[in-house]
């Protein structure tokens, strides 16, 4: 558990978002001492008494909620889906995409499922999917998958998918079309509430630095 003398710990996710995160870290004066893309280490120190954890995107909220990291960078999709008890002080504007409903072209052409109907939906966003269809009066049987949602309608396992769409090329390649957008997504800086209360003098400058870094990127 972090004490006052321990470094400020920031959880980052590997993969797509990392490339967009690095310029922000540079602008914020928090450059890691090793190349985050190539290192096999999971814990990397940086300038300014900061330590990064490199973990899976889906685990960032867990680390921050449990106080193993004071802060983290995580997609809004995961915040909306799991509603973790964290502060969300800053939208970093990186990792932009949309959380969409898509389906086979011929099904979508027939229009949205009617109220009262029952459909099968493949997704890893069980809660958001359920909420969406409940509001439409449609009973959605959620089929939880961990990846490659696009396959589910192709093999007849699902009528729709709910997934992140960046360019839409994967959908198009699999003859799927978008039906609706649930949310615009980007990555956010999140903070553990207890860390915010007990380590505010360390955390506030980092939030500030990120906020300036975003403005730099924009200009």
């Amino acid at each position, binding site marked *: 558990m972090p004490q006052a003398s321990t470094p400020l710990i920031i959880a980052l996710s590997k993969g797509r978002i990392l490339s967009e995160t690095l310029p922000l870290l540079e602008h914020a004066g928090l450059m890691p001492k090793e190349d985050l893309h190539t290192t096999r280490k999971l814990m990397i120190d940086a300038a300014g008494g900061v330590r990064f954890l490199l973990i899976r995107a889906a685990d960032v909220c867990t680390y921050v909620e449990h106080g193993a990291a004071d802060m983290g960078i995580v997609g809004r999709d995961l915040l909306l889906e799991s509603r973790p008890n964290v502060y*969300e002080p800053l939208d970093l504007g990186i990792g932009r995409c949309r959380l969409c409903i898509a389906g086979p072209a011929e099904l979508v052409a027939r229009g949205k499922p009617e109220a009262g109907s029952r459909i099968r939906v493949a997704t890893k966003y069980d809660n958001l999917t359920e909420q969406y269809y409940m509001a439409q009066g449609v009973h959605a049987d959620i089929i939880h998958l961990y990846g490659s949602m696009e396959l589910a309608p192709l093999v007849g396992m699902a009528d729709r998918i709910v997934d992140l769409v960046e360019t839409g090329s994967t959908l198009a390649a699999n003859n799927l079309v978008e039906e609706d957008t649930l949310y615009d997504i980007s990555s956010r800086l999140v903070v553990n509430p*207890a860390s915010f209360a007990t*380590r505010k003098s360390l955390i506030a400058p980092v939030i500030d630095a990120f906020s300036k870094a975003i403005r730099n990127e924009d200009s």
Partner: protein
Amino acid sequence: MDRPIIGLDDAFGVRAKSLRGLQGRLLALFDEAGFDEVIPPILERPDTLKSGAGRFLADQTVVFSDPAGAGLLAIRSDMTPQIARIAATRLQSKDILKLCYSGTVMLARPVSRRGSRQQWQTGVEYLGVSGAEGDTEVMRLAATCMLAAGFEQPVLQVGHIGLLKALVEESSVSLETWRELIARRSPDDLSATITSVNISETNRQVLLDMASGLGDLAWIEAQQGRINDTFDAAAQELVSLVKQVGSQLEGEVQVHADAAVMPRFLYHSGIVFAGFAAGVPQALLHGGRYDTMMAAHGRDMPATGFSCDLWAWLDVVQS
């Protein structure tokens, strides 16, 4: 038969002993401060548990039919409604009540996945005294409890629900929506909501500052005279309380004013606070003033208090 029930654990050995030790220390502190213990039964009529403060936990309260014929009974999910019932009935002859309690409450579902459905809720209620006098005592006691349990660098974060109420009283969005937005401290989501709501430019900026975590003591003082009288009254109450309690606890517990401290449930009417400590990932205690709630239990009187979960304390103190 021997399978454990989800979210319910047996405690024995060192854990049982530690719990009793901690409970004894806190009850001794309450006693020293003049709070008398109340031990209500674990079952109540659902009406009691679901009115006033209890209605926010209504869907977390297990209700069953009494085989002995008393109708529906509920397992308590919170002790405050029981204390309120006792204050409104058996103890109605006393104008001022200083009561404390320590007992098991049960939730229908764990708050976090795989979490516990049981809490050993321990706390105090100070009834019949309005304003700073009661709040100071309750906040000081909350801070002392964190010290007695051995937490390092404890912090009391103090806010006032009156600030938010004053800022959004004319907006069409519900207070609960605002509470949730401020509690999550997401200025980005807040600005998205604000653009579709009829609210003045000044109030808009003040809300964004709050969500951005800028609402400390100096900031609160600087906002006085900008919003309205309700805001100023709440701000003054908060500022003077934080200064007073802060100086009493100087060197032991840090007392921070933060305009964005929100109650978990909207029954608070004034000061709200939460306790934190170094290395503990969640709030250790919650408290505040709830003057308007007692009327729902049949006795309109000012009230303030705090509570904590001894099991949660034990888990973080031991590690």
